[in-house]
């Protein structure tokens, strides 16, 4: 991701870009964790943080942690910077699409060969 210190904009886009990409990362993580929870009994066991809710508790908690950690790291790196927003958007949209697809049960089943 190309980064420059100067910008023609009043406010550098780094903080916004960090939030957008982190939201994409969190969404993608949600999809990947949901799939692994569904596909592997060992992962389902790992993700069961709260027994009454089952694997969903760990899937969502881990996705939220990944999202917030990614946001924290990106915000620290990009604060006050201007980044290539087109690349950030592309990455965020791809990750969002991954999140949406992998939370759709027919896609989950297709990947698992069910």
């Amino acid at each position: 991701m190309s980064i420059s210190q100067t910008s023609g904009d009043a406010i550098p886009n780094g903080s916004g870009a960090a939030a957008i990409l982190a939201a994409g990362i969190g969404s993608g993580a949600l999809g990947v964790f949901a799939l692994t929870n569904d596909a592997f009994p060992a992962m389902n066991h790992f993700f069961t943080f709260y027994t009454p809710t089952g694997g969903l508790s760990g899937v969502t908690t881990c996705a939220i942690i990944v999202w917030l950690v990614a946001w924290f790291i990106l915000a620290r790196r990009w604060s006050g910077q201007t980044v290539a927003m087109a690349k950030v958007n592309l990455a965020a949209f791809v990750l969002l699409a991954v999140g949406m697809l992998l939370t759709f049960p027919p896609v989950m089943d297709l990947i698992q060969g069910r």
Partner: protein
Amino acid sequence: MEISFRDLMTVLHGMGFGALFMLAFSGAIAELYRMSAPGAPGQASAREQSLLRLYLGAMVILAWAAVISGAYLVYPWYRAVPPAGTADLAEFPKFLLTSSPHTSGWHSLGMEWKEHVAWLAPIAMTMVAYVFAKYGPAITKHRQMRSAVLAFAVVAFVATGVAGAFGAFLNKYAPVRGGPTITIMNISEHEG
């Protein structure tokens, strides 16, 4: 007029948080678009910007309240395992649905999709609210950032729509019931 505790919590989750969040979308998307569209007529006043920040902040709270109450209050009742030999599955919605091939899809597609996709909404809306709070109408100077914010807001709307629609259908075919009965008011029946 009575309602069971579980029914009440399900209504709070679905109508109190989820539906209110859903209803708020049309206003949020229209206002975000209006305030951030290039060549928007006139600059939004400081009061209008503060109100939109407050509005988006309230949406974020509603979104998180909806998914957390769903996952940790209602879902455990939905997926409760009946004791061996239980014939009446009315208080075990997941098992009631999966006991028949005519209704099992409501669980295997509806609930399995709903329980995950709903979480995209609070993540996306938190980002949308943060970016607007940070940039306000100055987001017009960042065309691509504006596009991303609006796209994530639309995805959050779709995710909430999926979760809400399946929630309504699931509650129709296998309602979450049980727990203590709460009397809302005493109304005597009048004939004629």
